[in-house]
């Protein structure tokens, strides 16, 4: 029943933090970070997930690799539900690259220890095989073999991130989830890492989930983009399509807000930038209070994510989508 082109299918995935009751029986506050996300990841694509802080994109990413367990919903890998089987089962196929390269490397282990761990614990390789693979791996990410015996603090941010990428690849995954992989890097080395990711993807036939708040970066790497707002996906479309003519007013606001060299904005839009209270979510569309196109029906119910008039790949959760410019 699963079309072969989908590597991962996410169905109604939700994650709630807190909740329950205290010893005295009073309710604890409950926060829903991801509220019913459904998404397909197609083989060989780079799916960009964009959204601002607090929109749930990092929680979604952590659930994808099993670092966090969903409250409800399913993550199907080649048709098999792995959402509750924990890190190990998912880590074989799905790996993760962290935002902060330096803090994601153990300061007291050599690069060799760090890179060998996935080979030993996930692939069960012997020491000879590990050694061969290590050398190939470290060259693949443009680092020299003698770096293997150094400690993380001896590396710059860009080098450390290449080590982070090497660690993700050491487990030979099919899918790599990249959580803001260049945000912590200096502008001058971002391109190095982006170019490296591009080459590795081509050479190894990888599928990427690329999470970022930087629209310019996502535009340059993604083939398809999903926009998240307040724990929900509000729009998905092929990257070009989305950036050229967005359907959802939030996507439009995001695109217009990104600063571009040599383009000065005219005047203030008066947008508050405030998210709804996550402990007391509004009944309708969470973007309605900020939305210039909001009408009464927006505040009554959440619109479904569905195809509008731009073909079945371009879907938006909006009652009053923007028209093509």
């Amino acid at each position, binding site marked *: 029943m699963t079309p072969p082109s989908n590597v991962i299918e996410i169905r109604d995935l939700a994650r709630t933090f807190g909740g329950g009751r205290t010893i005295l029986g009073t309710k604890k506050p409950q926060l829903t970070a991801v509220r019913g996300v459904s998404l397909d990841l197609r083989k060989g694509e780079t799916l960009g997930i964009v959204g601002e802080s607090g929109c749930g994109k990092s929680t979604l990413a952590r659930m994808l690799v099993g670092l966090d367990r969903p409250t409800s919903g399913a993550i199907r890998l080649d048709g098999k539900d792995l959402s509750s089987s924990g890190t190990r089962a998912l880590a074989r196929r799905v790996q993760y690259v962290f935002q*902060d390269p330096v803090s994601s490397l153990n300061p007291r*282990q050599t690069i060799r220890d760090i890179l060998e761990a996935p080979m030993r614990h996930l692939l069960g390789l012997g020491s000879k095989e590990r050694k061969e693979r290590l050398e190939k791996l470290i060259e693949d990410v*443009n680092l020299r073999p003698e770096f293997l015996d150094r400690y993380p603090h001896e590396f710059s941010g860009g080098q450390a991130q290449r080590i982070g990428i090497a660690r993700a690849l050491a487990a030979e995954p099919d899918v790599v989830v990249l959580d803001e992989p260049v945000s912590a890097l200096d502008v001058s080395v971002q391109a190095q890492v982006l170019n490296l990711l591009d080459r590795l993807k081509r050479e190894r036939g990888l599928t990427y989930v690329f999470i970022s708040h930087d629209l310019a970066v996502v535009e340059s790497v993604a083939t398809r983009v999903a926009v998240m707002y307040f724990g929900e996906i509000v729009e998905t479309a092929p990257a070009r399509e989305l950036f050229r003519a967005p359907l959802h007013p939030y996507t439009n606001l995001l695109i217009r807000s990104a*600063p571009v*060299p040599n383009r000065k904005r005219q005047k203030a839009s008066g947008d508050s930038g405030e998210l709804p209270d996550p402990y007391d979510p509004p009944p309708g569309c969470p973007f309605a209070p900020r939305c210039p196109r909001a009408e009464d029906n927006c505040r009554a119910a959440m619109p479904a994510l569905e195809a509008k008039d731009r073909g079945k790949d371009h879907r938006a959760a909006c009652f009053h989508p923007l028209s093509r410019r």
Partner: protein
Amino acid sequence: MTAAAASSRDDRSSGRERRERPSTFALILNNRLAAAGLVVLCLIVIAALAAPILPLADPNATDPASRLAPLLSPGHLLGTDALGRDMLSRLVWGTRVSLVVGVSASLIAAIFGSAIGLVAGYAGGRTDQMLMRLIDLTMAFPYILLALAIVAILGPGLINALYAIAIVNVPFFARNIRGITVGLARREFVDAARLSGKGPLTILWSDILPNVLPTIVITLSTTVGWMILETAGLSFLGLGAQPPQADLGSMLGDGRKVMFTAPTISLVPGLMIFLIVMSINLIGDGIRDALDPRLRSGALARPAFRTKVAKGRRKADTDGEQEPLPADAGGVGLDPLPAGEGGNRYPPLPCRASPPQGGRSPSVGLSERSISPLEGEMPAGRGGFQGRDGDDVASDRNDNPVLAVRGLETDFHIGRSVYHASNGVDLTIRRGECLCLVGESGSGKSVTAMSVMGLVPSPPGVIAGGRIGFKGEDLADAPDRRIRELRGGAVSHVFQDPLATLHPLFAVGDQIVEAIRAHQPLGKRAAEAKARDLLDLVRIPNAAQRMKALPHELSGGLRQRVSIAMALANDPELIIADEPTTALDVTVQAEVLRLLDTLRRERDTAVLFITHDFGVVSEIADRVAVMYAGRIVETGETAEILTRPAHPYTRMLIDCVPVMGEPERRLDAVPGRPPAVNRLPPGCAFADRCPRVQPDCREGEIPLETKRGSLEARCLHPLGPGEALAGGADPLEARP
């Protein structure tokens, strides 16, 4: 492949940059007290270890005939005790016993306590609750009572005393280690270890324990002395070592009975306990100072009120005539703090539609000057500061720059090396003008900005040269009182992370009121009214209510607005904004940028804005200065520098970032890394990374000079207008 080329060069440079920091052991030895403690302890330990081979009398042989012999009696150097036993021999053997018991008790406590702490901290939840409540239970008793109870159950004896002391000290370790582990268990490298397929026990053993080990060692080194004291205490009470065995505590106990007839008998073991415990504590402190990363980084050292200014500060014009600092002709003079009572909140500053008074003449740049090494002696500054001709000075006077930094040199003294973070920087900002300082991290842009108000932490920072002209006075010479008056008054700051700069425990309204009242003679009411107006001004909805909010109750965007309100509180003439929007989301960033831009235009405030994002630059800047390795390498008007830069570095910095609307553009990383600022190469610091490098780039001082239009660049082979670097098409020209 660009990335490959980039990385290989990149990698080579890192080899040289291995640590220069002295080793931990050297650090301990450097600490004189710790070294003294180490010497004393070593002597004691050697004596104790060598007890069996030393020519000592039998410590337990009684000789009633020569009882209570005084010090220095023949055959008994330290005299004898009430039973005629040789004190020296008993002292050495007793020390041996006390040391062994104290150290073993510490080790046992460390092992069990740390294990409990590690498991509790990593597992969290119920396991943590259970273990820690048990620990709390043992901590609820006074320790000596607990030890006594344990000995009472186990029976007296040295080994039982050892157990008692170890058990009593387990909570101490458990709590300490748990605290550290809780922090570590949430770190990303632990997540990474889980993704590598490691189980919880493997993670505890191979990932967390090595990071906790320094803490265990620190705790151990500071508790061993205490444990020896406790062992002595129990023995003193007769619950530890049993007669005739000697340990320091029991010797003390024996001496007590003859305290008045022969005080030396209790004095000698007492002195030994003192020596041991003190030497161990001194070493412990030394170890802690050397291992604790916070102490190591100097974070716990109290920073000086302002950056130290070197005594023999180079003033850039030592051999030329004194360059007049820009004076303020507007009459605002040295009293930039107008009282804001009543309706007239803001001084009637001249209103002006966009461009600054200076117009667009080339001299608006960072001081234009001609370079002719033949005609004048080069001044002493290392930034290649050149004398200025008379015209320039005149135009400066007319334009009344708010800030005129000349040849600023800010150094960091770390260990034996000196880092020239800011290496001869000139900046000029006029009223109502916004200058953006752009560069990679480590280029010195923040240090330059912090130097203006002396906010660079000292030690290690030192202003080694240059002048900081603020409306005619040199801030580097100004007295502390004047600096305090200016800070938050005429010159205010907005930092990157408002959560870190706002006080977490006070309502934001109170913090703004405090900022107002520190500079203006206003009553509480009036200041509150003004604070509310300020919050309205930065468009915080519902300002009256938000006054009572604590910083953590506000979103990131609102917090930064509060910081901006606070910066505006005393009608500053200069706002120094250090990456104020970097931590914000794009939609919020857009609003905050627009707000800052509008406010500075309305109030004619000068802004020094630091950023690394050229998109942000074009939103807000009138002029741009690009910094590299502590120097300004290019400066000019925003539009010109963004479209047609002259310096290859500026071009590369612009080209390496993806731009919205141009997804097809090939990204070229800047190869390599910036040079370390403690050993800058001669000539151009960018030469190693520059595709246009020629042999002459690596020789001599390259001055900042006018290239074309408003652009000044520190480059011998600048780019032509719109010229791209070899290899890539100019994306801006190529755009349809």
